[in-house]
């Protein structure tokens, strides 16, 4: 597995773990009727995400030292461009969907930030997943 593919897997797994924990906890509170926003939990999850990314990326570079030092080749650049193009459309749709909570009620600014962050995280997952599929199956 190339360094770039490992990076895509690392992003997918760390986003799922760290932001999954954050959104899972927030939605659990929301469904139990306690809809307080927990900024400290978000900070902890972002911190864990950064540390995990750093450690796992260093480990990936250590196991594939040649790949880690060389610039992307043409196929890797194309995969990156296509995955970000897919991610762009996903992000546009999700940002347009921010109008739904606005239409249904009067969400507070932290609530809107919560939904926007959810959109950004979903987009990140889609980009990483698209990269993995293209690395595995070709295009």
């Amino acid at each position: 597995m190339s360094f770039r593919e490992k990076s895509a897997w690392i992003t997918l797994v760390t986003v799922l773990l760290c932001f999954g924990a954050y959104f899972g906890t927030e939605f659990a509170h929301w469904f139990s009727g306690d809809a307080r926003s927990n900024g400290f939990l978000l900070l902890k999850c972002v911190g864990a995400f950064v540390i995990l990314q750093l450690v796992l990326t260093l480990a990936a570079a250590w196991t594939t030292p040649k790949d880690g030092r060389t610039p992307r080749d043409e196929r890797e650049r194309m995969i990156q461009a296509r995955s970000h193009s897919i991610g762009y459309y996903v992000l546009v749709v999700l940002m347009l969907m921010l109008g739904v909570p606005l239409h249904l009620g009067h969400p507070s600014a932290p609530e809107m930030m919560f939904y926007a962050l959810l959109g950004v995280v979903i987009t990140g997952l889609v980009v990483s997943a698209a990269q993995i599929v293209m690395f595995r199956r070709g295009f």
Partner: protein
Amino acid sequence: MALPIANQIRRLRFEHGEMTQAELAERIGMTRQTIAAIEAGKYSPSLEAAFRIAQVFGAPLDQVFQWIG
């Protein structure tokens, strides 16, 4: 998804001292995974990369890549 371009890279590698994918990749500035994808017909290289590959084998482009429609 099968691409409409066939290639003889695998045969040419073995005819050139059993060159590995990694060696070929290093000589043309690509990753081994990209060479593997080209060989397997999962990725069509750019014209520049195709010429570089042909140059490594000292063969004309049409002996390395063939259009099969």
